[in-house]
């Protein structure tokens, strides 16, 4: 993996959030505490470079994301129901947009897997925060990493 891949991931996440949901990322000013009720969304990819894109975020962020994308309110049932789906779609979008940045030739072909979502255990946060790009989005801490 290229040394600048983590920065490319953060930039791609920021661009995707802005385009999908008008959400801007802000830098983290101090080490953030573990987000409450966080989930880990992963999407594997294989090709000239292989690995997995991971985004870790609290469920409250997923609901806000869903509401912004759908043009509704975070308290709307539709935004709540589609929150996990929307976070997975975000990772799908980020993964797809990241591949050209990881490739070395326009002829490269990557196989993208389907995004999966699981609940984060609080004990994972120390390791996740140490190996991720961290940012804030409307008061929610977001972590992104390539593994």
């Amino acid at each position, binding site marked *: 993996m290229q040394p600048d891949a983590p920065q490319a991931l953060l930039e791609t996440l920021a661009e995707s959030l802005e385009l999908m949901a008008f959400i801007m990322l802000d830098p983290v000013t101090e080490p953030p505490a573990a987000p409450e009720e966080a989930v880990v969304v992963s999407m594997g990819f294989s090709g000239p470079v292989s690995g997995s894109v991971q985004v870790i975020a609290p469920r409250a962020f997923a609901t806000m994301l869903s509401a912004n*994308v759908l*043009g509704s309110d975070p308290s709307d049932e539709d935004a709540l129901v*589609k929150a996990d*789906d929307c976070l997975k779609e975000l990772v*799908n979008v980020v993964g*797809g947009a990241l*591949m050209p940045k990881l490739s070395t030739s326009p002829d490269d072909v990557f196989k993208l897997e389907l995004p999966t979502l699981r609940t984060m255990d609080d004990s994972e946060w120390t390791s996740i925060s140490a190996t991720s790009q961290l940012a804030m989005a409307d008061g929610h801490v977001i972590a992104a990493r390539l593994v």
Partner: protein
Amino acid sequence: MGYRFLIVDDSATTRAVIKRTIGMCGIETERITEAGNGRDALAVLAVAKVDLVFLDLNMPEMGGMEVCAKVQADPRLASTPIVIVSSESMESRIQQMKNQGAKGYIKKPFTPEQIRNVIQEVLEVRNAA
């Protein structure tokens, strides 16, 4: 009589956004059908006339590439316009889909204008044929 659309994407959120965008395009719509994977999309196409298909690539059960190939191979469906809506943005992949007969390629995340423009382009071409 309005146009009939089929939106194929495993993300319910994306289906909802495309559906809403079609509704805001100001074109007469008879029906908008949704499918969450390629297999369900082919089942819809087997029984219902569709004027334009929005098709994701990376889906469970059956992906968009296979749907495109099956539609092209079926003389009853081969003229159905398909527009790919996918996060995949490698030029090699986009060219592959155009070679498979896709009429357009919209990269996620998309803007409402992109959906509106492709609807106008594809359906105008179809009406002029």
